[in-house]
């Protein structure tokens, strides 16, 4: 896995330099500029609204909360523009929650055919550490000298997938809420095989130009699809990548 991260980083670097070269070629043309940016993010693989089965969120912390990327902007006129980017980013979180009557399955590792189904009540940890290579395509609009906004879709390719956790201090009702009661403690699960390779979503962001070169940025990314594959039933609700990015950028020009 480590190696593939390096490959991705190299790819990002290479793309940035390509963009920079492209920018040099077209440097006479004011219509094109290139930005590089990096920053941190907060968010998670979250249900659109918390299902009733979740009774308490005991702890939450972002994990792998970073992004680094580059964007090429094409200015159609003084207000409107288009941008194409490439971002390497982590979308992850560590949570501890208390659930009640949560319909789930405990799988044998990486074998979805053999599973213990039922309704779980108790504590659960969820650790999601996914790394993506994302391509955002955005429309940009210049609001003022300092401010501009961007919006548009993105497509993300998972380069590293981690989704695991533990059920503890709880019990499972076998098959039905009226089924046999089985105490569950330290039961591990690993769902990484069920994480989708592709995530599609929409971004909405804004940039504030501090000066001609540097800018600050904030962007909300919202994933349209459930990050888990179709047919995955161990979590009864869809999980969407929802993240707020905050960072800084530099205009190469």
């Amino acid at each position, binding site marked *: 896995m480590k190696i593939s991260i390096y490959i991705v980083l190299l790819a990002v670097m290479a793309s940035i330099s390509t963009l920079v070269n492209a920018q040099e070629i077209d440097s006479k043309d004011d219509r094109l500029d290139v930005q590089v940016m990096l920053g941190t993010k907060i968010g998670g693989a*979250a249900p*659109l*609204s*918390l*299902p*009733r*089965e*979740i*009774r*308490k*969120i005991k702890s939450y912390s972002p994990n792998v909360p970073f992004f680094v990327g580059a964007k090429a902007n094409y200015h159609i006129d003084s207000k409107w523009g288009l941008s194409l980017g490439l971002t390497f980013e982590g979308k992850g979180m560590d949570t501890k929650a208390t659930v*009640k*009557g949560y319909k789930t399955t*405990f799988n*044998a*590792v990486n*074998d979805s*055919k*053999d*599973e*213990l*189904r039922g*309704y779980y009540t108790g504590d659960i940890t969820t650790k999601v550490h996914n790394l993506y290579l994302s391509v955002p395509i955005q429309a940009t609009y210049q*609001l*003022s000298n*300092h*401010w501009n*906004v961007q919006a548009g879709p993105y497509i993300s390719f998972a380069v590293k997938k981690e989704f695991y956790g533990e059920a503890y201090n709880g*019990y499972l*009702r*076998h*098959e*039905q*809420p*009226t*089924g*046999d*009661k*089985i*105490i*569950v*403690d330290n*039961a591990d699960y690993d769902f990484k095989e069920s994480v989708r390779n592709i995530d599609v979503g929409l971004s*909405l962001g*804004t940039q504030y130009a501090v000066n001609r070169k540097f800018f600050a940025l*904030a962007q*909300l990314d919202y994933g349209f699809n459930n990050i888990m594959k179709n047919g995955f039933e161990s979590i009864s609700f869809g999980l969407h990548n*929802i993240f*707020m990015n905050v960072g800084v950028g530099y205009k190469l020009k």
Partner: protein
Amino acid sequence: MKQRRIYLWVICFMLLFSLGSCIKEEALNMEADIVGIQAEEDIFLLNPVITNNQVTVYLQPSIHDLKKLNMKFDLTPGASIELLQDSLKMPAGEQDVNKVIIDQLLKNGVYYKVVSQDKQFAKNYLIKLVKTDGGFVPTEYGFEDISIDKDEKYTIFFNKIDGEDFYNWGSGNPSFSLTLSFGGGVKEPESYPTKTTTDAHSGTKAALLETKLTGSFGAMFKKPIAAGNLFIGSFDTGPVLTDPLSATQFGLPFNQIPLALEGYYKYTAGANVTDENLKPVNMKDSCDIYAVFYNRKKLMASEPKPENRVSYLTGHNILTDPSIVAIARLENGGATAGNNFVKFVLPFKYSAKVTESDVTNLDYSIAIVMSSSKYGDNFIGAVGSKLIVDDLKIVTQK
């Protein structure tokens, strides 16, 4: 102005995001359990034995007037309970429903239906009262009476004596249903480790215990085999994953002094003994048949916390607890020769004195334990080992 508008957008998004993330109102309970039984007076000889679909209430020997019994069920919060009318067999001409209920509670039991708070789930419980003044653990077992669990389809052994049903036998079958669910096995009585066979010494049936592979479920939880077991007591599925030795709750009150455990058995050992990692172990499998007589009052008094007091022994202390006064055990559980039943007579070896009046007062309990693999409780045994037992008898002091 424009700047302010952007702030507003961001704030709107944050609000949407956080609003959607609020903890919702708690859903109504889906569970429909009887979790306890309350009575105004001290009418219980021991804590009622409550499984997932059966409740057995052992009454104090001094309780005679059952019409005054005032019992209340503790249920999952919000759940409701009602008598299943069609489980009540009203004799012709009988008008007094309460009398019929009590009679039937004592004889065959009465079904009650518990409905969950959200009304989506319901469960039937067989409620059985046991009067204990005459001594209530039968002394002879032909293993002729069985019932099949409605949902999981495993065999349950009970005893019919003078028209009254005694549910004294427990087995690990309820936990094996997890294996069958997990590996997609067929849920039928023959799939389970503890079942019945027509290969009987007398009558038409005998108990058949067979050591089984637990497949991928066992691989996941490091419990690769399940020995067939049958014992006086009850089985609690709660700790099967976390502490399986405590899932077996051995022993019920007994008011006679046991002298010997007799019966007929035949045993064939499976070919390859394996350990908890399913690694081969160089030994022959053997069965286990034993009975333990223990001072239940002493056992309960030894636990300082009232809420932790239990009336039964478990896999942790069934042969070692200080309250044990006598053990009768099959010395050599190896394969029996030929295909014939072999008689065994196991004398109770007493290690402590027993006061007869205490026994008569039901201070003592007895446990009979049988297993198709002697070390099956530690997941050591041979798949395919088969123990057949019939015509078990506790010989008592007259």
